């Protein structure tokens, strides 16, 4: 199981074979992060399952509460995160071909999209709360604040991963393909969890 462990940074920098695209029939990032994101996806599926199970029991109440959400705002948020995903994928690709500056630029752009999403989310929360829709207003908004809040927490953790990514891209000694890809995998997970939450909260009837 030695592949499970983060190789020493110097070894990664010293071994150019680590960056070889030919060795790509492997796993992007640490296999460990995959276990984490897939496990976390299943836990989220549990939350979604309870939401979808309870929803048809009071369809009218849910539908009425759902009308209070702004679908266009949700779509803009989704597009923001999808763009951030594209940018970090490009960052990881650039790192693979050792174009460090391109990789760094894309990483910073990813973080900007993340901040934009965060801002939009907080604005959305404030406007919902001003309209009188709080976590205890009704079941729908309980789920709304719970799912969006938990997702936002994952986004904040994602900033920690982005910090590691930038740190790894900047210092030649710290560059490790495995860690860089791991950060990408985590960020994409934040993205696709939002894709699911968006569909469930804004679109599902």
């Amino acid at each position: 199981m030695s592949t499970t462990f983060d190789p020493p940074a110097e070894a990664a920098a010293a071994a150019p074979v680590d960056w070889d695209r030919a060795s790509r029939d492997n796993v992007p990032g640490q296999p460990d992060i995959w276990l984490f994101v897939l496990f976390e996806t299943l836990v989220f599926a549990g939350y979604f399952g309870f939401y979808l199970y309870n929803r048809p029991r009071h369809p009218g109440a849910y539908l009425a509460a759902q009308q209070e959400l702004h679908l266009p705002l949700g779509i803009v948020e989704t597009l923001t995160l999808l763009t951030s995903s594209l940018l970090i994928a490009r960052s990881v690709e650039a790192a693979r071909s050792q174009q460090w500056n391109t990789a760094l630029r894309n990483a910073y752009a990813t973080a900007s999209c993340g901040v934009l999403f965060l801002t939009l989310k907080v604005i959305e929360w404030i406007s919902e709360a001003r309209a009188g829709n709080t976590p205890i207003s009704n079941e729908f908004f309980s789920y709304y604040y719970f799912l969006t809040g938990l997702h936002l927490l994952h986004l904040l953790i994602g900033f920690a991963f982005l910090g590691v990514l930038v740190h790894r891209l900047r210092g030649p000694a710290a560059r490790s393909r495995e860690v860089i890809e791991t950060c990408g995998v985590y960020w994409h997970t934040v993205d696709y969890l939002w894709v699911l939450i968006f569909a469930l909260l804004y679109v599902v009837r």
Partner: protein
Amino acid sequence: MRNAIDRRLLSAWLVLCALTLLYLVIDHSTADAGETRRALITVAAVVVSLAKVRIIMREFMDVRHAARWLRGLTDGVVALVAVALIGSYAAGAAWG
């Protein structure tokens, strides 16, 4: 080589955005919609979002090039989530 990868990432992103905008088309004034219609919209939304998840995994997360076990595992998880979500909705509609 680089350009080919960039183009592929970009087209994946375009498909994802198009699928997102598709939601705008889905009827928004469903206050008086029937049960069947609501269920149809729900299932469609879940399926479209899971398709997007799979595209993100395959293209952005590079599962496309990954080892067989990872490809199988991610697809398995997506399928499991699909079954769980649609199943819960159906169960809620049937027994709720």
